[in-house]
């Protein structure tokens, strides 16, 4: 496979060879029109054994089709001294002298052009067929545009030469960091924007221009997010003024309008909801089930929460799975008791920690969240097994983990009597393993495996902290700031327009209101 090309093509490159080659591609390799397809279907069979499989090739010097696997094309090449053949499946050119596929620049160029043309034709031609259910993944009109790797055109090379300044992302560069002006108690919005612009998958989605807007009006929040990302990664160091974003938020989430301080968590959910709704419009296909759309928001943030209600009499279990974007965790110090974690007060030792003394941890909160809970005699449910109302226990576990998990520590209590902020310190880790809280782990616990040894090779449930939103002050007057992580271990504090470097200790010692964790390993489904 010499990169210098094959000298044997020169014998072929005579007279009208380019046009002849184009014809071969159009008729027998990438047949775009209905008539070329018909001709291909009829004539592309091995002239020696009649098969349409086995890597059919066409001789480049005469009209002869033969298969490669049974060496029929080789026989032809030898006997007629026709040294070049073309693979009818992939369009590669085979040289029998070099005994390999060769890559001639001019021929490659022709191949590329013909392939693109055929694809485009396929797109319009299919409207005439009786094929009425196109695959949902593909362009509804046909196959769509063929993916080809980007190569700069002459004009683009010129542009690159005339603009020699390059932005190089080094390990300590701070691109992506930008302050946000407070437009009047808008720190509740700013802190969430900081967290979102530093969510790697979301950043990649917007920076690679994946949003194709189909909204007629100018009020698409996804477009505005796209703009925001451009602003953040522009390299400008002056703080950005997010007035357009604020206006769109007021338009789409009326309950957040006004100049009063709002709840950052409420803003997060409202923002995700609007983005999700606006994203659905540009998926080409409409989601049949609003809970299972494939927009970028769902791909990143949506997890599945399993709720098992067990009848205390017949032990039948009724299971539902609901989608979630965040997990709201009760804290000690609220009016609902935190300890003991489960009825009977079992002491569970997980990851080497016990809960009797010391600060409350995020793990404690998650354990409480996933504990079995007696629903009490005043809340009997109708059991389909017993056909009557019975007492039951309910338990929540994680069925499907989202790529980005957001934990909301319920610090703001709004009960009938009290309105207050719970300032109990909750310690949270840099790395989190969600395995003990999975529905699958619960099942193995129920099957008698009490000791949950964390499997070091199972990476599915491991998360890393990448953003922390904090609230300082009281319920009436407070201020939100965000810690965000850049590169592997550099943290910054975003306080509206002011960005300062922070240490890991600063982050972990902070009170914590919204905790954003990102899956460490992304696997194929």
């Amino acid at each position, binding site marked *: *496979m010499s990169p210098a090309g094959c000298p044997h093509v020169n014998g072929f490159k005579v007279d009208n060879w380019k046009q002849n080659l184009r014809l071969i591609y159009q008729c027998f390799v990438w*047949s775009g029109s*209905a008539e070329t*397809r*018909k001709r*291909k*279907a*009829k004539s*592309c*069979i091995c002239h020696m054994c*009649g*098969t*349409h499989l086995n890597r059919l090739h066409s001789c480049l010097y005469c009209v002869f089709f033969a298969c490669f696997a049974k060496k029929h094309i080789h026989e032809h090449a030898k006997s007629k001294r026709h040294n070049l053949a073309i693979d009818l499946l992939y369009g*590669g050119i085979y040289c029998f002298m070099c*005994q*390999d*596929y060769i890559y001639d620049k001019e021929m490659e160029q022709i191949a590329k052009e013909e392939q693109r043309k055929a694809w485009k034709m*396929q797109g319009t*031609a*299919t409207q005439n*067929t*009786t*094929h009425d*259910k*196109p*695959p949902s*993944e*593909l362009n509804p009109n*046909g*196959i769509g545009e063929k993916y080809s790797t980007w190569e700069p055109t002459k004009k683009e090379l010129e542009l690159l030469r005339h603009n020699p300044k390059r932005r190089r992302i080094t390990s300590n560069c701070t691109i992506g960091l930008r302050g946000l002006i407070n437009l009047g108690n808008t720190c509740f919005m700013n802190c969430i924007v900081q967290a979102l612009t530093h969510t790697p998958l979301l950043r990649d989605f917007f920076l690679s221009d994946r949003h194709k807007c189909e909204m007629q009006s100018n009020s698409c929040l996804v477009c505005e997010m796209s703009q925001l990302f451009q602003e953040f990664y522009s390299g400008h160091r002056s703080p950005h003024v997010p007035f357009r974003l604020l206006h769109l938020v007021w338009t789409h989430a009326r309950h957040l309008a006004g100049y009063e301080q709002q709840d950052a968590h409420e803003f997060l959910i409202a923002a995700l909801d609007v983005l999700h709704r606006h994203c659905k419009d540009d998926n080409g296909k409409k989601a049949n089930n609003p809970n299972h759309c494939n927009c970028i928001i769902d791909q990143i943030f949506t997890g599945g929460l399993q709720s098992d209600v067990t009848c205390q009499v017949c032990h039948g279990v009724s299971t539902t799975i609901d989608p979630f974007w965040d997990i709201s965790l009760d804290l000690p110090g609220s009016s609902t008791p935190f300890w003991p974690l489960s009825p009977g007060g079992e002491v569970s030792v997980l990851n080497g920690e016990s809960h009797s003394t010391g600060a409350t941890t995020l793990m404690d909160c998650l354990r409480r969240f996933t504990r079995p809970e007696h629903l009490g005699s005043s809340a009997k449910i109708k059991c389909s097994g017993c056909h009557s109302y019975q007492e039951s226990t309910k338990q929540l576990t994680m069925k499907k983990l989202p790529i980005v998990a957001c934990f909301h520590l319920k610090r703001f209590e709004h009960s009938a009597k009290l309105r207050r902020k719970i300032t109990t310190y909750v310690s949270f880790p840099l790395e989190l393993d969600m395995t003990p809280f999975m529905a699958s782990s619960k099942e193995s616990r129920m099957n008698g495996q009490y000791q949950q040894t964390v499997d070091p090779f199972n990476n599915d449930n491991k998360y890393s902290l990448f953003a922390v939103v904090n609230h300082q002050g009281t319920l009436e007057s407070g201020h939100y700031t965000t810690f965000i992580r850049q590169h592997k271990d550099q943290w910054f504090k975003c306080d509206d327009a002011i960005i300062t470097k922070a240490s890991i200790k600063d982050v972990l010692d902070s009170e914590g209101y919204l905790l954003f964790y990102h899956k460490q390993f992304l696997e*194929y*489904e």
Partner: protein
Amino acid sequence: MNKEARLKATINQKLTETGERERLKELLRAKLTECGWKDQMKAQCKEVIKEKGLEHVTVEDLVVEITPKGRALVPDSVKKELLQRIRAFLTQHAS
């Protein structure tokens, strides 16, 4: 050509004529990329190239080594889906 081979040829003709063959190929391509098969194959190819040496390896070497592995590694779910599509096509165009 025996009856089965003739049937196969007819089906292939129909698939090619209507352009369904190309559509199915693209669907297959997308599915195999999504499930990581393409990356697995890429890795296998790199292995073969390392073994044979970049200067001497031919496309044929790769085809011979990779084809059986590739065939074995296609997930059942992908096979099922493609079969379903082909079946649907055939029922639509039964003549």
